[in-house]
């Protein structure tokens, strides 16, 4: 008596194989059965398969929905033979020869789900190693190893190289290529490989991409000269490639790429079994590729975020946090970048009785603006000193910033010098909004702008005029960048110069820190959650007079 193989196919879930060598086995949905199947239309103990004489019988155990052999309902016991199909509820049980599992013919692609993970040794040790069987074993091994290698941590590049490794080992192509789909939908060659004897350019045919990746179909072209799908694709034929295998790399969310291997037909002509292996390997890879790619992207983003956070800290550290403790003076400032790093700047230097200050705004946002801002600060610190005039400081900064400025970055700046003994303020503007002034009596106005010069960095011989005004004790000077006046609300209205002037007048009597805070609050309340478009800087300076 020879054993039988019962291939059990429930309405949902995994196909499973059950080997029967002798005795009997009861199949049903109850836990008392020898083989339990998750099928509600089955009875708890539905039917028994038993060895009898030289053959096997199936016996219906009084199942409510009956047992059918090849469509005929079984009354009592019924002889069965390999090839029969037994229907139990919604479950099909196919009867096979036990040894059949060792034959290559049993490994059609539809059966791979059940065959995939069977230990290779089970096949390779008992087998008469005919050529075909050896090839099948090698392919199963390729799949098995691929799965095992992918189970551990692996980078995207390593994963793709591994896939090519396995393909070259199992299918011996001359060339192989894996394309991945970019976020914009285009296909990018991720890895490729060719044997040393392959000639010509490595080939990625647009036609093949359309057929495989766009239409989601696997392609087997055993002889391209005979295949009308490629009748116009002269690049493929011209490259001397005659046999092509290609498969989409597809997961539940769609096509992530494709893999193709090529051979000249007189060397190797691919067949259907080869295609099945390629499809299996590509499907196995697909499950990991998207996850690995997403993980690598996330890791790169984390590095970038970390770098930006560092840059933010460095930039903020450039801004003075402590203001001069002088009886003549009270200062406060706030700078709120719209992104991690920004192009706004405030700074000051105290030399004897002279306070130099700058508020500046580099064009644009982000890293380029931040670098330009850092250079501007360095130039200000290098050039503002007691012998210099305001006009010479701003002119020299301009010359330096305009040098080799092919990208036309520019920075608007207001540079001033306040003589703490007299309240004499000298200032110059390079394309920057004029400061506002609140007198001790509560009157506010824009400081009469000197003839505004051009923003720094554009015209290397630009001339800057100085403006002069004398601060009275109690006067408050307010410097800002246009991120304040151009903050917008949900209706698209600007905060505006007029609104800033009004709010400044209302809060001018507050201590400098309180004044800055209240103006920042005003801008935030106005914007009411509309994302900040530009960096916001406010610097307030109260002159107390000489003590």
């Amino acid at each position: 008596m020879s054993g039988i193989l019962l291939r059990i196919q429930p309405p949902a879930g995994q196909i499973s194989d059950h080997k029967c060598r002798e005795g009997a086995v009861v199949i049903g949905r109850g836990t008392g059965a020898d083989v339990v199947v998750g099928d509600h239309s089955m009875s708890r103990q539905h039917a028994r398969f038993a060895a009898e004489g030289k053959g096997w019988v199936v016996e219906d155990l009084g199942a409510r929905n009956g047992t059918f052999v090849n469509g005929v309902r079984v009354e009592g016991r019924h002889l069965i033979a390999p090839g029969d199909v037994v229907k139990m509820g919604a479950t099909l049980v196919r009867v096979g020869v036990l040894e059949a599992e060792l034959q290559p013919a049993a490994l059609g692609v539809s059966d791979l789900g059940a065959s995939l993970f069977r230990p290779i040794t089970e096949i390779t040790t008992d087998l008469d190693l005919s050529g075909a069987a050896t090839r099948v074993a090698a392919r199963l091994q390729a799949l098995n190893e691929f799965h095992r290698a992918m189970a551990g941590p692996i980078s995207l590049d390593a994963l793709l190289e591994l896939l090519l490794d396995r393909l070259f080992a199992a299918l011996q192509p001359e060339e192989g290529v894996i394309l991945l789909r970019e976020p914009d939908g285009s296909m990018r060659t991720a890895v490729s490989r060719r044997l040393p004897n392959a000639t010509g350019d490595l080939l990625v045919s647009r036609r093949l991409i359309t057929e495989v990746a766009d239409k989601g179909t696997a392609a087997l072209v055993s002889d391209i000269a005979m295949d009308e799908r490629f009748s116009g694709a002269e690049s493929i034929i011209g490259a001397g490639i005659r046999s092509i295998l290609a498969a989409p790399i597809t997961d539940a969310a769609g096509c992530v790429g494709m893999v193709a291997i090529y051979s000249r037909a007189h060397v190797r002509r691919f067949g259907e079994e080869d295609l099945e292996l390629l499809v299996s390997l590509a499907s196995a890879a697909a499950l990991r590729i998207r996850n690995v790619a997403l993980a690598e992207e996330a890791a790169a983003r984390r590095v970038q975020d970390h770098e930006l956070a560092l840059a933010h800290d460095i930039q903020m550290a450039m801004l003075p946090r402590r203001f001069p403790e002088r009886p003549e003076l009270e200062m406060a400032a706030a700078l709120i970048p719209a992104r991690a790093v920004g192009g706004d700047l405030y700074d000051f230097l105290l030399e004897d009785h002279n306070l130099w200050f700058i508020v500046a705004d580099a064009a644009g946002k982000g890293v380029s603006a931040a670098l330009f801002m850092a250079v501007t600060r360095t130039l200000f610190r290098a050039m503002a000193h007691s012998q210099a005039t305001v006009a010479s400081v701003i002119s020299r900064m301009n010359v330096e910033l305009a040098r080799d400025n092919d990208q036309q970055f520019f920075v608007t700046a207001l540079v001033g010098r306040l003589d703490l003994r007299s309240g004499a303020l000298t200032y110059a503007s390079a394309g920057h909004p004029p400061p506002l002034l609140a007198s001790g009596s509560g009157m506010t106005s824009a400081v009469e702008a000197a003839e505004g010069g051009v923003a720094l960095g554009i015209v290397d011989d630009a001339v800057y005029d100085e403006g002069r005004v004398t601060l009275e004790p109690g006067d408050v000077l307010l410097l800002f960048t246009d991120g304040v006046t151009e903050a917008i609300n949900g209706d698209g209205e600007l905060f505006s110069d007029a609104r800033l002037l009004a709010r400044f007048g209302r809060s001018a009597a507050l201590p400098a820190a309180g004044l800055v805070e209240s103006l920042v609050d005003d801008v935030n309340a106005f914007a009411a959650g509309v994302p900040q478009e530009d960096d916001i800087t406010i610097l307030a300076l109260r002159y107390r007079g000489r003590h």
Partner: protein
Amino acid sequence: MNIQRSNHDGVEVIAPSGRIDTTTSGAVEQALRQIVDGGARDLVVDFAGVDYISSAGLRVFLLLAKRMRDLQGRVVLCAMPEPVRQVFRLAGFMPLFVVEPSRDAALTRLATQT
């Protein structure tokens, strides 16, 4: 942001509309570069449809003016709404450009100065 383009007797007229700020200035810069790469040497930029321009937007037109100078081409800006004109003026950039009040005036200017 939308950029319209037309040709008037060999003069390329570019009319952006909407906001030209950090978000959109890249697209405007690219469009202008393509037009200049395509061989245009007489350009009019019509600002009639522009609601707002930021410093990043200004930079795009500085780059354009510099490039046209290098290529010995000509560019005229025109029809600037007051808020746009303010931004150019405040940054001190008005003297760097040829500016006309209307598209017709800009085309006339390029036609007469040949």
